[in-house]
């Protein structure tokens, strides 16, 4: 008799959403609820915020985010799946918002859950680097004088 152990992985919804559908408190709540079955003893959450100081220390008034939605969704799900496998996570959710953002507004959520806390910060660092550089997401800083610049994360 061969015994097969299957790990149940929750990873269906890393995605890009319109700003209007990006309710950060609701996402946090849903992530915590989804991972409250007792399998995870540690949850780490990262929230990316529109920052005032931009490229070359310029004063940013707004951020524009756009994406190639189909490809970005596929890549975000691939990143989540990779990290779940590499770090033995129970869950990895990346939700990125798209649209126009005022300074101080949240625009990205990353949540990871694991049985124990070991390597959790490494997993989060990798998630952040990868979501910034691998999916077709584009960020433009709009400055006080009305000019703007598209930013490269590489």
């Amino acid at each position, binding site marked *: 008799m061969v015994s097969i152990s299957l790990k149940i992985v929750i990873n269906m919804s890393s995605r890009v959403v319109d700003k209007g559908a990006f309710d950060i408190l609701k996402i946090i709540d849903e992530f915590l609820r989804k991972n409250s079955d007792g399998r995870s003893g540690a949850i780490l959450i990262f929230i990316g915020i529109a920052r005032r100081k931009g490229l070359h220390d310029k004063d940013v008034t707004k951020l524009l985010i756009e994406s190639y939605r189909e*490809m970005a969704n596929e890549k975000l799900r691939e990143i989540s799946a990779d990290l779940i496998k590499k770090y033995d996570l129970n869950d990895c959710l990346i939700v990125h918002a798209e649209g126009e953002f005022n300074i101080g507004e949240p625009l990205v959520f990353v949540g990871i859950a694991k049985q124990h806390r070991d390597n959790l910060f490494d997993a989060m660092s990798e998630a952040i680097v990868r979501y910034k550089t691998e999916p*077709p997401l584009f960020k433009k800083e709009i400055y006080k004088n009305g000019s703007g610049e598209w930013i*490269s994360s590489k």
Partner: protein
Amino acid sequence: MELLCFIAGTMAITVKYFASVREYMGKRQDTIVVDEVKVIELLKRLKGIKGTLDKLLLKNGRLKSIYTIVVNGRDINSLNGLETIVKDGDVVAIFPPFSGG
């Protein structure tokens, strides 16, 4: 009528522009009706408000490293580069550097 629309919808190559490339072209996408064409020819043919795409994307006949071209979701670097042939129904997307928030 529906059949004609269906045929018209598939007999074309769609080229999508993003971020700074979209601004250079002054539009989000083009639809080109040809049987097949190499990517390099496509870039020379597609014109926006600031010029043809090859002027923006190429240097000495090569794709500048900051730009990415994908055909049906696959980077042309993993296909045949600028010599990659695109056909009816294909979707080409042209990206400047990526940057998540």
